[in-house]
């Protein structure tokens, strides 16, 4: 049975039971039953087929978290199309490269995001989702009405490796192309097979004992591999009601956890810490039975603080709290998610857990880099053979670029080997930031560092920056330059200027 058919069969079996509950920003609550979800997916399939979406069509999906997002992904899988989830925070440099790399036939977005994505839509079919139906938007008509959005002047990266002109390099079974960074300075489209989603979801379900989870809170973006596995496929395939919220405001999240009887919360460690701090102020525990963290580093201190907020009165060494609630930390990357995870009843503080079933693993003899192999590993980077060969060796081992140590089967993250860092669970490629900064006509070079959880840049100004055609750029000026080109989470908190 295909992944789409399995999702639809499970949803159909749930009939009138809640599959998704969208609490919005707290003012309105929309419920989708299993039958609603199946009908919505089938309606989207018909709309997609009418527009010509079919086997191997490449489709960019730029939607917010919603039941519609899940139904659209299901419908695209049903049509045999390859979807590319696109984060809405991306800016010009990133979008330019991703659209050029993927060259999608179709773009699915929402009306409010149309303008930011419009410069990349020439020659593509654009479908706008209003939450119920998909509507085709005429490019020429919209372009005439929006003269501001021209393709001219869009920033480009200069570090790109040569790409084969053959656009058909999609191996069989690929369900999606998920953009990620590996420290090359530009995004890479990781090809993810349906089987990988199925294996990742099964591995996660085993570790968390999914039968014990009934209602989960969705905070992770569904455009991210962790969100797709944990918040889209897991609830759909394992009879968990997914409650969607569109705020990260900690007091409102704690209220939603209480109101909706949430028992399972997958998130990044930063959200756990945010909730823990708010809970401490308000003297009530985070009322979930299971908290799963991944996406970025969970320090031991942070682990203990979250444990305490889950109701653990003695967080000295226990992984299971006196309230019965548990915190499981794990590790994954776009190329394989999850890769490691602590298991219910066997979690250890300060570790990323054990490698999930179905994956072979070893640590490199030379530097301790974690290597992974198995059907749950990605199929390569779309149209990037050089980068694919660097990541996947001839024996099929994925070089994760992350160094680990191991103690009784539990892995502990040590540091990154590749020039990247994670901020609130989002990958920042230090080479990309350097390349974009170096594109400023007054900048000779930039040195980027990630220390104490903060991104810092030391910028070397070019000679003659105070010449006739310009004054010395300020840190604010460079920050404004970056804001136009990069997602806001990639902007350094400190920019120091240095003259050559």
């Amino acid at each position: 049975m295909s992944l789409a058919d399995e999702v639809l069969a499970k949803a159909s079996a749930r009939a009138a039971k809640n599959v998704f509950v969208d609490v919005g920003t707290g003012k309105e609550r929309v419920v989708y039953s299993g039958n609603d979800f199946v009908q919505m997916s089938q309606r989207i399939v018909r709309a997609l087929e009418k527009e010509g979406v079919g086997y191997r069509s490449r489709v960019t999906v730029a939607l917010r978290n919603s039941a519609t997002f899940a139904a659209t992904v299901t419908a695209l899988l049903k049509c045999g199309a390859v979807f590319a989830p696109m984060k809405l925070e991306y800016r010009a440099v990133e979008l330019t490269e991703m659209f050029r790399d993927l060259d999608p036939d179709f773009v699915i977005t929402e009306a409010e995001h149309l303008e930011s994505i419009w410069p990349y839509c020439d020659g593509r079919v654009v479908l706008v989702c209003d939450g119920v139906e998909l509507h085709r938007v005429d490019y020429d008509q919209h372009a005439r009405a929006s003269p501001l959005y021209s393709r001219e002047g869009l920033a480009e990266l200069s570090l790109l490796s040569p790409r084969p002109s053959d656009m058909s390099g999609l191996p069989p079974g690929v369900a999606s192309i998920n953009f990620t960074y590996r420290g090359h300075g530009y995004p890479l489209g990781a090809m993810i097979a349906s089987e990988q989603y199925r294996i990742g979801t099964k591995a996660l379900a085993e570790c968390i004992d999914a039968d014990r989870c009934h209602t989960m809170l969705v905070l992770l973006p569904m455009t991210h591999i962790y969100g797709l596995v944990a918040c889209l496929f897991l609830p759909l395939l394992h009879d968990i009601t997914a409650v969607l919220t569109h705020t990260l405001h900690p007091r409102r999240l704690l209220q939603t956890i209480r109101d909706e009887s949430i028992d399972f919360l997958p998130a990044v460690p930063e959200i756990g810490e945010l909730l823990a701090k708010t809970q401490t102020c308000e003297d009530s525990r985070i009322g979930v039975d299971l908290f799963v963290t991944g996406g970025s580093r969970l320090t031991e201190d942070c682990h203990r603080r979250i444990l305490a907020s889950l109701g653990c009165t003695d967080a000295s060494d226990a992984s299971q709290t006196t309230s019965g609630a548990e915190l499981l930390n794990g590790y994954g990357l776009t190329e394989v998610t999850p890769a490691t995870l602590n298991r219910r009843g066997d979690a250890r503080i300060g570790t990323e857990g054990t490698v999930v079933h179905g994956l072979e693993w070893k640590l490199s003899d030379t530097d301790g880099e974690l290597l992974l192999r198995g059907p749950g590993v990605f199929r390569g980077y779309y149209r990037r053979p050089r980068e694919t060969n660097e990541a996947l060796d001839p024996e099929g081992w994925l070089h994760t670029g992350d160094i680990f140590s191991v103690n009784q089967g539990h892995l502990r993250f040590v540091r990154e080997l590749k020039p990247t860092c994670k901020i609130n669970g989002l990958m920042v490629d230090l080479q990309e930031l350097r390349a974009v900064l170096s594109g400023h006509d007054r900048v000779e070079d930039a040195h980027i560092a990630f220390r104490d959880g903060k991104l810092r840049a030391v910028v070397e100004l070019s000679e003659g920056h105070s010449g006739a055609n310009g004054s010395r750029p300020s840190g604010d000026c460079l920050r404004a330059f970056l804001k136009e080109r990069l997602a806001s989470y990639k902007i350094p908190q400190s920019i120091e200027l240095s003259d050559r």
Partner: protein
Amino acid sequence: MAVNIREKVRSVFAEVCKVDIEHLDDEVRVREELGIDSILGLQLLARCEVILGIEVDEAACAELETVGQFLDYFESASGS
């Protein structure tokens, strides 16, 4: 009353950002100079809500840039 609210919010900034209160002039830029990212910002808003007994508009706060603008916002939201 208004002064009291401004000082309360300034104290929350100092506590959340771990900086001395005398360094929190109205002109200080919260993201660039205090390093307040989205997560820290939400923590700050939640603390202010509890202390002032109000509910903030997250979208409106996302547009604010300096300590002074935040103080003005909370003063106004508190009806002072």
